[in-house]
């Protein structure tokens, strides 16, 4: 819903290392914003994008969906994406949906 | 029985709620509305044309037989025109749509009700009346008058052609007479009827659909009942509006 408030999330980027940390919660109220932020980051970096999701307490399907989109977006430019660390909720979801290997988990 | 009536009130109430936001950007509903335009409008065109033309010819034939006796054969044009525009165009179109669209509305909603699709819509937070009935209302409100105008046109054309080639009346004279005799007022009184008929068909059709309970047999029963009740209500409404027209003038 467009009139709904966004769930809080924070992100920090290290352009030189090509890595980012996302913290908080990722659901359908903020997934589009996170996607735009990640796409901006992709434009500023080169090579493989590394994500640290250890501080991500919750992710829903739209959150997983934007990660897959970013992966496609990078693959089109012959770049990759790797997820370094995940929290337990996120890891359960990755294994249930069997998309962990796409991100090197 | 009281439960059935409560359901009708519920339906009307929900439909009135739809009036507050009559247009939508939601793709599923838009698609539904377009589907019904095609379904009610384009698909009914051939049968409406055939029946209206036949009626035009029948009227010309019947009235010619009577008018010839009093030496007023040229009045065939007036009789055919008025009967079709004010009465038979709207009535026949409505009867055809009651059998085609009304029955289809009932069958669709009854099937969805029995397979729990209606419940599924509701628990997804989607108003089943807004999703299923409102698009039918919109499509009916637009298509009913258009089809009626088309029925008027084909009926008069067919009556004219028949009069020209079989009764030996002058073709251009026939159409001139029709055009000068039928007023906008006549045309509108027919169209107002057609709106009311369209509403009756949609309401009865959808209401009967919502009343369906378990079992595929009920779909058939409800469909039959929907058509019979629609026809009954159409004729009653016709009587009401015709009486009103002549009382006002």
């Amino acid at each position: 819903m467009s009139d709904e408030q966004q769930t809080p999330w924070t992100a920090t980027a290290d352009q030189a290392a090509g890595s980012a940390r996302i913290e908080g919660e990722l659901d359908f109220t903020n997934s589009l914003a996170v996607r735009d932020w990640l796409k901006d980051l992709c434009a500023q970096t080169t090579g493989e994008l590394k994500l640290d999701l250890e501080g991500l307490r919750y992710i829903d399907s739209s959150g997983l969906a934007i990660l897959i989109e970013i992966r496609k977006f990078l693959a089109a430019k012959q770049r990759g994406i790797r997820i370094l660390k995940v929290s337990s909720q996120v890891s359960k979801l990755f294994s249930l949906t069997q998309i962990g290997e796409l991100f090197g988990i | 029985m009281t439960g059935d009536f409560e359901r009708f009130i519920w339906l009307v109430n929900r439909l009135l709620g739809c009036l507050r936001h009559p247009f939508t950007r939601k793709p599923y509903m838009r698609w539904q509305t377009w589907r019904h335009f095609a379904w009610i409008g384009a698909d009914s065109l051939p049968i409406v044309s055939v029946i209206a033309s036949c009626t035009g010819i029948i009227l010309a034939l019947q009235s010619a037989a009577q008018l010839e006796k009093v030496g007023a054969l040229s009045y065939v044009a007036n009789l055919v025109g008025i009967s079709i525009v004010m009465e038979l165009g709207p009535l026949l179109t409505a009867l055809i749509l009651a059998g085609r669209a009304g029955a289809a509305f009932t069958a669709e909603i009854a099937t969805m009700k029995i397979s729990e699709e209606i419940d599924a819509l509701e628990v997804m937070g989607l108003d089943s009346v807004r999703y299923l009935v409102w698009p039918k209302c919109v499509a009916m409100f637009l298509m009913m008058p258009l089809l009626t105008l088309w029925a008027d046109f084909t009926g008069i054309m067919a009556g004219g052609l028949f009069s020209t080639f079989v009764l030996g009346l002058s073709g251009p004279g026939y159409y001139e007479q029709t055009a000068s005799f039928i007023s906008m007022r006549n045309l509108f009184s027919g169209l107002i009827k057609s709106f009311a008929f369209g509403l009756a068909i949609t309401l009865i059709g959808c209401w009967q659909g919502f009343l369906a309970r378990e079992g595929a047999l009920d779909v058939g029963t409800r469909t039959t009942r929907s058509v019979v009740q629609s026809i009954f209500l159409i004729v009653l409404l016709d009587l009401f509006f015709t009486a009103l027209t002549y009382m006002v003038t």
Partner: protein
Amino acid sequence: MGEDWLTGHGAPDVTLEGVNAGYNHRLILQDINTVLPQGRISVILGGSGGGKSTLLKTILGLLPPSSGRVLIGGEDLYSPEGASLRDIRRRMGVLFQDGALLGSLPLGENVALPLREHTSLDEETIETVVALKLRLVGLEQFSGYFPAELSGGMRKRAGLARALAMDPRILLCDEPTSGLDPITAADLDQMILELKEAFNMTVVVVSHDMQSVYRIADNVVMLNKGRTVFQGGVQALRESADPFLRQFLDRQPSKRQPVREKQ
């Protein structure tokens, strides 16, 4: 708890307080008092005509009780005040008996429907979410098929994918294993267990399939003639000495009155 499950990611419990419900003044449920705990799988068990479906309809917000209250995560489902039915339903996923997919839409569109109508996600994201959900239930190649082209088991799985579309906090299933072969039924049970675990959901299952109950249930509510005759864990159910329960669990026929010969 409280509001958390409506806006956040907690799971609500379902509380029924003195619920009486039925159709047209014929009472089917009588004085139901129970709590279906959060984050657990509760199975509502009972014979045909025992009031299981009626109870489910009451919890879904489709059948207002004639008296009593239905609370979901503390919110009164039928109260005009408080969180609206619409908000509560957005956090609910329902798997109907035969899937109840819209016959006029292909599978992918069925799953996409709640996302299209309730979120402002764009087309690309919706497609990815739909693909994820279909993959979850093993139907990713069937996105373009219409429900009528699928088998009963596939329709159920597709119904599950649609129920999960909005990442519900509470999942309700109406006889998920009925009409399925034993392997498909076990697969579906396994799926429900894993989903509960991964999404932290409260799950309510209506069933009379005892094998399935032993596999998935954390909590069992047993109905007979519209009244609760048992509530508790699976172990307690197994050990119960109640005659009706024993008859149900041991699959014994009901006793008939002996037929007397005419004299």
